[in-house]
C-alpha cells in the first residue's frame, strides 16, 4: 500500500492535501478541456458535415466516372437520363421547397436585425440591401434555369 502525503484523521476516506490539490488540478484541466470542446463544437460539426459531404461526393464521382457499372458503361446524356430520371414535378417541388426555406430564413434574419441591432442601424440596412440584391439575382438565375429545363 502506498501512502501519499499526510493522512487526516486516520481514516482512509480522507485525501491528503497534495492529493486534494492534484485532484483539483485534474478537475480544472478536465473542465478546461470540456469548455474548449464546447467552444469548438460548432466548428467541428461543420467540419464533420463537410467531410461527410466530400466523402459522398467523392464516392459518387468515383463510381460515376471510374467504375464500370453494368448497364451504365458510357457517359452519354442518354445513359445519364436512364440512370437518373428527373421529372418536371420533382424540379418544381425542389424549387418551391427552396423558396420556402429561403423565405423562412429571410424572416429569421430580418427579425434578428430588426430587434437585436445595437444602434448602428446603417450597417444592418446595408446588410439588408446586399442580402436582398444577391438573393434576387440567385433566385432569378434559378427561375430562368427552371424555365429552360421545363421548355427543353
Amino acid at each position, binding site marked *: 500500500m502506498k501512502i501519499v502525503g499526510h493522512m487526516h484523521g486516520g481514516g482512509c476516506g480522507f485525501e491528503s492535501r497534495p492529493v486534494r490539490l492534484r485532484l483539483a488540478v485534474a478537475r480544472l484541466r478536465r473542465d478546461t478541456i470540456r469548455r474548449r470542446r464546447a467552444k469548438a463544437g460548432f466548428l467541428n460539426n461543420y467540419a464533420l458535415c463537410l467531410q461527410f459531404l466530400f466523402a459522398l*461526393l467523392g464516392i459518387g464521382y468515383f463510381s460515376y466516372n471510374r467504375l464500370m457499372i453494368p448497364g451504365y458503361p458510357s457517359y452519354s446524356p442518354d445513359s445519364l437520363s436512364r440512370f437518373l430520371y428527373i421529372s418536371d414535378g420533382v424540379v418544381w417541388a425542389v424549387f418551391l421547397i427552396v423558396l420556402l426555406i429561403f423565405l423562412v430564413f429571410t424572416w429569421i434574419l430580418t427579425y434578428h436585425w430588426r430587434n437585436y441591432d*445595437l444602434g448602428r442601424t446603417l*450597417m444592418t440596412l446595408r446588410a439588408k440591401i446586399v442580402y436582398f440584391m444577391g438573393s434576387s439575382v440567385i*433566385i432569378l438565375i434559378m427561375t430562368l*434555369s427552371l424555365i429552360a429545363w421545363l421548355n427543353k
Partner: protein
Amino acid sequence: MAKQIKLDLDEKITLLIRKHFLPFIFEVLFLVVLIVFPPVLFFSGRFIDSLSFLSDYSVLFIFGYSIIILFVWISFFIAWTNYYLDVLVVTNKRVIDIEQKRFFHRDIATLSLDKIEDIKVEIKGFLATLLNYGSLNLQTAAESREFVIHNIPQPIKAKDQIWNLHVDAIQAPQDVRIIQNE
C-alpha cells in the same frame, strides 16, 4: 438602443466593442469550398465530352448550382448575423456582454464596474499577435464565474479603458442613506 438593454438615467455608453473579423472569416471560409467544388466536379467529369455547354443537363446543373449558391448566401448571412450581434457594451456603470450563440439563443451578462478586481488580457497565437486581437478576462471578488470575452480587437486598449472606468466608478461618491430608528 435595442430593447434588451435598459440604461439608467445617468448611465452613458462609453465603449461598444465588436469581435474581431478574422474568426468570422475562418468560420465562413468553408463556404468558398462549397462554391468552388460543384463546378470543378461537373466540368472535370468525363461526360463533359459528350455534353455541349447548353444542353439539358447543363441547365439542370445551373439550377442545382444556384440552389447551392443560395444556401451558401444564406449561411454567410447567418454567420455574419451571429458575428455582428456579439457586442461588448461598456457604460460608466457596468460591462454588458451580449453573445449571440445562434438563432434564438442569446446570452446577456452584466457586471458592475466597481465589482471588477482584476483584468487579464490574453493574446494567443501568431495571427492574434499580428492582428492584435485576443480575450479579455474580467475577474470579480464574488464566487461567480469569471467574465470572459473572446476575440476582441485591441484588447490591451480595451483593458485600459475599462480599468479607467472602474477606477472612476470606485472613486465616484456613493449614495448613502441613513435611517434613524425612532
